[in-house]
Every structure is written in structure tokens, then in C-alpha cells.
């Protein structure tokens, strides 16, 4: 409708059209919300079934080890590389800012807090979800479209227990370790740039950092790492397992799996950070 046609309408017609448009928009919102709730419910059910099946006979721990090697060992190089450069870049920026207020001694603790509590788990989650999560979705998707999953079912082997559960358990176990590696390498980057580029006294850097950082900062990050691992492995295996169509379907489910995982990691991080803070406040109140 052109602007002129719109102005030519009577007040009643305009109101009617506006109401129609509003109703459509409202219905769209409701439908989107309903489908979001349904999808979330299905995902939660899928996760619960997979985890429950992991502890049922027959044992699949040999499969868990294989997937731990795939998710963990094969991600070490990119984790180290990104951790190192995150530490270098973050320390550089923070140093420049703190130099203005003459607080360069606080570069170490600030980088430490940022890396341990946020950047470590979030970036590890994003990197591993793109690498291993994408591979999981593609592998299961290919198995689905080539009837390999049907073949398992016909053979009397539960495909969720054989294919999905070990991947989820392996990811949840490996993600805290990868996060710890990321944290360590990022702090190494911070040390290198502070000591060798900005001439900060190494003893002062280490003492300040250890003074300000508490073990629970590290635990918090490791917990987040495991949680993000759970999220992306469930999302990616679910997408792969429910792939429809041929090669295009595999591409779509891989793409959806990785994108949804990445967005979810960032969204969930915000809520988990808040929940953890509420937990600490409650704990402090109860201890007083």
C-alpha cells in the first residue's frame, strides 16, 4: 500500500487495518514463543534421556574415551593459540587504560578475573562448539541420512545410547580441562607482554595476581565450561540426530547446531553469571 492510499483511508479503516496488523504480529509472537518452548522442552527431554542412558547397561565408556580424545586432544592446539592471543591482546588494552590512572600493577588481576570468570569458559565454549560440535552434528546427520542410525535400531542397539550419550558425557568431562588450559595459556600471554613489553616487575605481577584472585574464580569458570559443553553437545547432537533430507539436510543441521550453540553460550553465560553472583551473596548472608 502506498502512502497516498493509506492517507485516503477513513479513520475506521485505518484502525481496522492497524488492528489486523497488530493481531498478526501478536499471533506471530505467540507462535514463536510456543515453538521456542516446544523446542526447548524437546531438547531438555533429549538431554535427560541421553544422560540417563549413559549410566545404563551396556557400558559405553570405551566410546566416551574415544570422544574425549576427539573433543579434547584435537582441540588443544586451537585452544592454546586463541588463549595466548586473547591474553596478549587483553593485557595490552588493559595496560593502556590503567597506565592513564597509574594502576599498571592491577593489569594481572584484572586480566585474571576477566579470563577465569568470563573469557576462558565463553571463548573455549565458542571455539570447541564450532570445531567439535559442528563435527558431531555433521557426523550424526550423515549417519541419519545414510540409514546408519536406522541400521543400529534394527540391530537392537539404542542409537541414542550408542551415539549421543558418549558424546555428551565426553564433552562435559573435557570442557573444564580445556577451559583450564585456555586460562593458563591466556595468563601466560599476560605475563609475557607485561614483563617483556611493558617492563612490569614479574614478582609484583605474580604477587598482585595471586593476591586478588581466589580459587573460586577458577572453579566458577570451570563450572561454566562444563555447562557450556553440556549445552552445545546436546544442541549439536540433537540437530544431527534429527537431520532430515540428504546432503543439504546435513549442512543445515550442522549450521543450525553451531549457530544455536554459539548464541546459547553467550545468552546462558549472562544468566549463569547472575545466578552465581546471587549464590555468593546468599552464601555471604548466611555465613554472617
Amino acid at each position, binding site marked *: 500500500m502506498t502512502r497516498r492510499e493509506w492517507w485516503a483511508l477513513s479513520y475506521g479503516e485505518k484502525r481496522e487495518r492497524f488492528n489486523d496488523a497488530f493481531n498478526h504480529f501478536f499471533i506471530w509472537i505467540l507462535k514463536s514463543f510456543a515453538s521456542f518452548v516446544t523446542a526447548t522442552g524437546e531438547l531438555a527431554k533429549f538431554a535427560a534421556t541421553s544422560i540417563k542412558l549413559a549410566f545404563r547397561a551396556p557400558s559405553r565408556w570405551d566410546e566416551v574415551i574415544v570422544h574425549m580424545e576427539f573433543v579434547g586432544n584435537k582441540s588443544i592446539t586451537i585452544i592454546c593459540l586463541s588463549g595466548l592471543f586473547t591474553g596478549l591482546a587483553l593485557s595490552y588494552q588493559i595496560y593502556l587504560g590503567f597506565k592513564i590512572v597509574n594502576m599498571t600493577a592491577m593489569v594481572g588481576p584484572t586480566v585474571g578475573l576477566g579470563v577465569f570468570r568470563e573469557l576462558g569458559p565463553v571463548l573455549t565454549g565458542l571455539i570447541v562448539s564450532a570445531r567439535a560440535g559442528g563435527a558431531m552434528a555433521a557426523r550424526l546427520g550423515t549417519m541419519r541420512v545414510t540409514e*546408519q542410525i*536406522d*541400521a543400529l*535400531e*534394527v540391530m*537392537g*542397539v*539404542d542409537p541414542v545410547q550408542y551415539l549421543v550419550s558418549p558424546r555428551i558425557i565426553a564433552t562435559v568431562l573435557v570442557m573444564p580441562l580445556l577451559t583450564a588450559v585456555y586460562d593458563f595459556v591466556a595468563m601466560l600471554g599476560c605475563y609475557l607482554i607485561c614483563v617483556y613489553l611493558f617492563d612490569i616487575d614479574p614478582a609484583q605481577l605474580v604477587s598482585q595476581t595471586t593476591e586478588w584472585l581466589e580459587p573460586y574464580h577458577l572453579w566458577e569458570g570451570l563450572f561454566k565450561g562444563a555447562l557450556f559443553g553440556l549445552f552445545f553437545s546436546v544442541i549439536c547432537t540433537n540437530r544431527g540426530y534429527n537431520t532430515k533430507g540428504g546432503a543439504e539436510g546435513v549442512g543445515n543441521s550442522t549450521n543450525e547446531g553451531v549457530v544455536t550453540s554459539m548464541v546459547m553460550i553467550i545468552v546462558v553465560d549472562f544468566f549463569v553469571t547472575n545466578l552465581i553472583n546471587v549464590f555468593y551473596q546468599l552464601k555471604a548472608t548466611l555465613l554472617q
Partner: protein
Amino acid sequence: MTETNAEQQSNIQYAVDMSDVKKSFDGKEFVLNGIDLKIPKGKITVIIGYSGTGKSVLLKHILGLLHPTSGSIKVSGKEITSMTDEQLTKLRQDYGMLFQYAALFDDMTAIENVMFPLKEHRRDMPRSERLQIAKDRLKDSGLDPKHFNKLPAEMSGGMRKRVGLARALALDPDILIYDEPTTGLDPVLTEMVDNLIVSTHNLRKGSTSIVVSHDLYAAFRIADHVAMLDSGRVLLHGTPEDFLNSEIDLVKRFVAKGVRKELQPKNGESEEPARSTE
């Protein structure tokens, strides 16, 4: 097995007995609309029909992968519609299935693929024994031992079918199911797969073979019984001869399009492989 059970088993004439099976996914349209089908034990039964007539859905019901909306399905005398998932999982060990494209696990070699069901269901069996059984099954299926350690990606379509069949036979199943075994294959491979089905059946006395296909020519070459589906019902179930002599219009048209006259069964005079000898 007790004597009474053994007697009961031997009295069961039908490997699969479906009565008035209906299936609807949306509650409105019925994909299966009152299927009555009795698949005799120890015979090769070919289920044919145009695309979209419910062949695959029927197969999934026999395998217990789908539950009917109503009706009864008995496999070897046992009602499967009321079985729990665990009971169905156990029951599926009695089945062997060859998929259209073999559905081999692409990260496993031919021999590992055949050993897989044994590894899953015969956990107490020593590895050497599993290996020997897998080798025997592959040899029975006609695969040259030099291909035993090849991955599916390194094998031809025919070789993959042989490995798929060997895997289906690994647990020594009572019922062998072939889902569109010759679809997309060239005439030479089609004949090879048909021969394989018949020779495997003849080798395993007492086993039942169910072949789902829309290749009527192949169906007549191998079948003891043919069942034709249309609109979710069994249009005709009988011997290939009953089929050729049928006066049902749709059957006549299907036969006219699907079978060349010179290739019709000739009661043993055919040069094509003989049907199963029971």
C-alpha cells in the same frame, strides 16, 4: 525351550501375521488402512506396490519401529504391538535387515561391520570366535577375503550389498528383511543381488525372507509369495502365478508395465535363478 513351547513354535505357520493394521500419523489420513497379511514361515515373500502405497511404513511396523493406530501384529506368534521397548530390542535380534544402500558404518571396515552385532549382543563371546563368524558370513555372502579390511568408501555397490547381507546374517536371524535391495542397481548387479537372496535363503533352511521392492521382474524371479499393496491395503496376496492370472485391474496394469512376457516364470524352464527350494 520347553517341549510345549517348542511344539507351539513349530505349530506357528506364519513368521508375520498382521490383522486389520491401521496407521495414521495425523489422525485423519490412514497410510495403512486395514492391512491383513500373513507371511508364511520359511518362504520368500515379496511385498510390491507403487511408490507411496505404504511399503516402508509396513516394514517399520514389522520391525517394531512404528506402532499401529489399531490392529494386531504377531511375529513368530508373539504380539509385538504391546511389547515394551526393551522387549522389542530383544525381538529385533531375530531380524536381519539389508538396507537399500546397505547402511554400513562408514568408520568400520567390512569385517568390523559384520562383527558389530556380535559385539553388541554376544558380549561374552571371545573376539576370535566373533572374528571367525564374521569371516564365515562374509564368505557365505560371496565377498573375496582380500576386501575384508576395506572401508565402505573403498568398496563397490555390489560389495557393500554383500557386506550388508553378511552383517544381517551375523546373529543368525529367523527373519531376513530386504528393503528395496535392487533399487538403483544396474541389471548385472540386480541379478547378482537376486541370486544372493535366493542362495542365502536356500542355505538357511527354515528362515523367512521378506523383500520390499517395486521391481516386479525381480519379485517374480525370487518370490514364493507376492503381496501387492495399494492405498494402505493388501490388494492381492498369492503365488506369482496367482498374480499373473489376476483379474484385478490395477494388478493387470502393474504386471503389464513391470514384466516383459519372455521373463515371466516358466515353472522351472526359466534360465533365471530358481525360486527357493522348500
